[in-house]
């Protein structure tokens, strides 16, 4: 006999950071050399910034950025990519861009300061790349990725 069945699912929180500032130009992958986690998980990151995921699990991934722009008129954007195919992930994949637009004095825009990848059927490897960087900028150590992994 069973009653009101709800299956318990292990959940882990993982944080990726980089211990030093990174000089970044358009097309560059963001690097993360430090991984902290609340418990066992299926995430790993290599020296090229490729983040491996366990395709049997669900992921809520959110990246926050701290960027020192090369000049005050520079814009920036970061997107999640499929690390295997080097193709940018779309909103229909559950991937969302972070974008800051430098604008003329008469225009005011509202940016998205977080990039996200949310997927119940994830791909095996993702990487975060600069898709816009007007001139070489610095991604500081305050930048991080927080991952919630549901088994």
């Amino acid at each position, binding site marked *: *006999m*069973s*009653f*009101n*069945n*709800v*299956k*318990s*699912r292990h*959940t882990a929180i993982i944080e990726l950071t980089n211990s030093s500032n990174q000089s970044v130009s358009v097309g560059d992958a963001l690097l993360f050399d430090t991984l902290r986690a609340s418990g066992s998980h299926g995430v790993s990151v290599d020296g090229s910034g490729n983040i491996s995921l366990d395709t049997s699990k*669900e*992921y*809520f991934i*959110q990246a926050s950025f701290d960027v020192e722009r090369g000049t005050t008129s520079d814009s920036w954007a970061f997107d999640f990519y499929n690390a295997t195919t080097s193709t940018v992930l779309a*909103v*229909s994949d*559950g991937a*969302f*861009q972070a*974008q*800051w*637009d*430098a*604008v*003329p*004095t*008469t*225009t*005011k*825009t*509202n*940016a*998205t*300061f*977080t990039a*996200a990848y*949310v*997927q*119940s*059927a994830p791909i095996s490897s993702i990487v975060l790349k600069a898709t816009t960087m007007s001139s070489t900028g610095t991604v500081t150590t305050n930048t991080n990725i927080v991952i*919630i992994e*549901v088994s």
Partner: protein
Amino acid sequence: MSYRQPTAATGVGVFYGYRSTAVTISTDNTKLPMTDASTGNTISSGSIDFGSSRKFFACGEVRADSIGDYQLGDIKIVANDGEVAEGYQVRNNATGTVCMDDACYGTSSQSTVSLFTGEILGSEAITAEANELRVTGVFVS
């Protein structure tokens, strides 16, 4: 024998919703309708519809371009009972003294979630265009 089997997905999981085309923002307290949702969820009247009440954490983001000299104000997450989840997204005036932006974050226990404009800054006669609109989240139960 089984008894009271769940009829809808329950438990921990992830979800998202977004809008695939731009939408004009012109008035306070107006829903910013989404058009697409993650597998297992639907869009109902511009809101993500979970099909049953769920406990969740949600994060909303809006990226907007001005049409004329316009400042986008607060954005808030609203669940289906009218409850306003905490958190605001405020203007980003990249050229002035105010340069501040945050996503809106909130928790609730409802069957739908949507994004609304809050109090709009600047003239309501001038509109902005949201070219990215999204809610991402995690179900707790």
